[in-house]
């Protein structure tokens, strides 16, 4: 981004013939494939980008990367007024085949090189301006057919990637490094708007990844509108991604390693490589056998990260629309406490380590994944209540209300088993009666 601004200082006015004429001629004839593109128009980075030229006009820029063979790809930056750049941004997207007429060809800035843009094998970069160049969608079927397979080739050596297991195993030694990752998409998060401490606005989206070594890994896209748009089209559990040059960092909030897509990253969706196809089959099998759903439930999310607020009615709508479990906050009243059912439905015995339900007189935890299987068995009686919650938009029936939250809210503590039942029974039944009194 600041790269773009610096570039502009170096070449304030675009003069088409600074590169050798023969090179410009060749470029004019070649059809190129868009394989990644950077959008530098997001509000978040406006300050770095708006550049006043000698005529006092604001200039906008937008960058993308094109490729026309398995081995070669090059960065392009377009410069112009807001209208021109916006039209250009909307005229094509990642994966389209375009023809670039008469771009300006310049050497890369040796100092900045590819600091904020994808690293390319070329020593050149292209500049497109309204006055001199044209970017057109390619309509030639023969060319398109030749170009399309390129979209599914990673821009890096297909064998040069880290598995998620590698990343987790390396831990914080990988913090801050830029690597390639091959992984399958587990779920797509929601688009979140945020404001940085210095007042700039941006957007962020999180994608959960998995592979055969790790079942849950977070990847976040920041700033980049184009990467977010691409991510929104991905089918969870049916997509494999090759993320070239993704930044790995340690997220202290989640206490885990996280991969971040930035301006240098090029994402290849369902790459045409052997490793990707093996991972794809693995993901499909796992998804069909329900292996992914199981683990989703045990995942623990920090409470502070749950910020979406819903009314009861909105919750109902969302529960119907959304197949994935979701988290949120609702401000509502408990309007029914189901304690009419037998004690076994109100109080359950659970393993203290994995919270898995066990029989009251059980001698061991029946959960094969329980982390404490070897360390001897201990179980505790906990509340497991069914409640209805109501607000001004309606009532959500059959919500599960468990210890330790239930204990805290009801202000009741589980007594040792011998005394537990009579004590609890009496008090909660009172609450139930209280509601029915209406």
């Amino acid at each position: 981004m600041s790269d773009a601004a610096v570039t502009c200082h170096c070449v304030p006015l675009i003069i088409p013939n600074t590169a050798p004429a023969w090179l410009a001629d060749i470029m004019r004839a070649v059809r190129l494939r868009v394989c990644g593109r950077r959008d530098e128009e997001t509000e978040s980075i406006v300050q770095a980008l708006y550049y006043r030229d000698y005529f006092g006009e604001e200039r906008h820029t937008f960058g993308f990367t094109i490729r026309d063979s398995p081995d070669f790809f090059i960065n392009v930056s377009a410069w112009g007024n807001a209208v021109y750049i916006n039209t250009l941004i909307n005229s094509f997207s990642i994966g389209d085949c375009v023809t670039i007429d008469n771009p300006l060809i310049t050497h890369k800035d040796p100092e900045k090189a590819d600091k904020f843009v994808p690293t390319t094998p070329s020593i050149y970069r292209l500049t497109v301006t309204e006055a001199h160049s044209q970017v057109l969608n390619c309509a030639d079927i023969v060319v398109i057919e030749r170009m399309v397979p390129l979209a599914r080739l990673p821009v890096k050596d297909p064998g040069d990637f880290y598995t998620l297991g590698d990343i987790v195993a390396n831990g914080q030694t990988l913090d801050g490094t830029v690597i390639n990752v091959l992984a399958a998409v587990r779920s797509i998060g929601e688009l979140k708007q945020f404001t940085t401490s210095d007042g700039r606005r941006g957007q962020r989206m999180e994608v959960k990844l998995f592979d055969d070594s790790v079942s849950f890994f977070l990847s976040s896209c920041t700033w980049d509108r184009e990467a977010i748009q691409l991510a929104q089209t991905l089918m969870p559990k049916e997509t494999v991604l090759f993320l070239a040059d993704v930044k790995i960092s340690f997220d202290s909030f989640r206490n885990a390693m996280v991969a971040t897509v930035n301006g240098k990253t090029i994402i290849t969706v369902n790459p045409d490589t052997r490793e990707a196809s093996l991972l794809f089959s693995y993901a499909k099998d796992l998804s069909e056998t329900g292996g992914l759903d199981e683990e989703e439930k045990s995942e623990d999310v920090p409470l502070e990260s749950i910020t979406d607020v819903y009314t009861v009615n909105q919750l109902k709508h969302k529960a119907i629309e959304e197949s994935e479990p979701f988290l949120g906050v609702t401000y509502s009243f408990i309007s029914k406490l189901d304690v009419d059912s037998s004690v076994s439905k109100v109080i359950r015995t659970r393993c203290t380590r994995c919270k898995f339900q066990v029989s009251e007189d059980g001698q061991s935890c029946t959960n094969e994944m329980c982390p404490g299987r070897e360390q001897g068995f201990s179980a505790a009686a906990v509340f497991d209540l069914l409640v209805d919650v109501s607000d001004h938009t309606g009532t959500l029936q059959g919500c599960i209300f468990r210890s330790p939250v239930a204990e805290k809210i009801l202000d009741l503590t589980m007594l040792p088993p011998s005394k537990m039942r009579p004590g609890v029974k009496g008090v909660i039944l009172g609450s139930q009666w209280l509601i029915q009194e209406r």
Partner: protein
Amino acid sequence: VKARPTFQIKPANEISLRILSAVIDGMRHWSQFRDKVPHLFELFATLDSAVTLGPHGGKNFLVRDGKEVVQCVYYENEKELPRLIRGQVHRCVGNYDRVRNVLVCVSIRPALPSEQRNAQEAVRVCDAEMRALVKTFSEV
């Protein structure tokens, strides 16, 4: 609190219990739709009488907001009525009996400062929700 994903109903036509924050006037107004929308009310109002003993062990008192006053009754069962201070704002949750003009309280306690701050906004939101809902009745 987590909703069961199997929970499938058509929200548009769905009738389930609503709990409405209201002022006394609003409570009287919305209670006319009782047959169509089951509801309870949450009132933030000032205790404006002594607490007296009524028939069937009921505790009677008045609450007021602005010029409006409503008679309340609370039946103690496992939970005794806490000591209420006249002149203080209380949070009353209950069922308004239109015929007797009595709010049958299921819960009453002093209102928290945070609740008092939010009360007006809560009432506004509930009113808007009810207005929209009632509109759909008249359209049918």
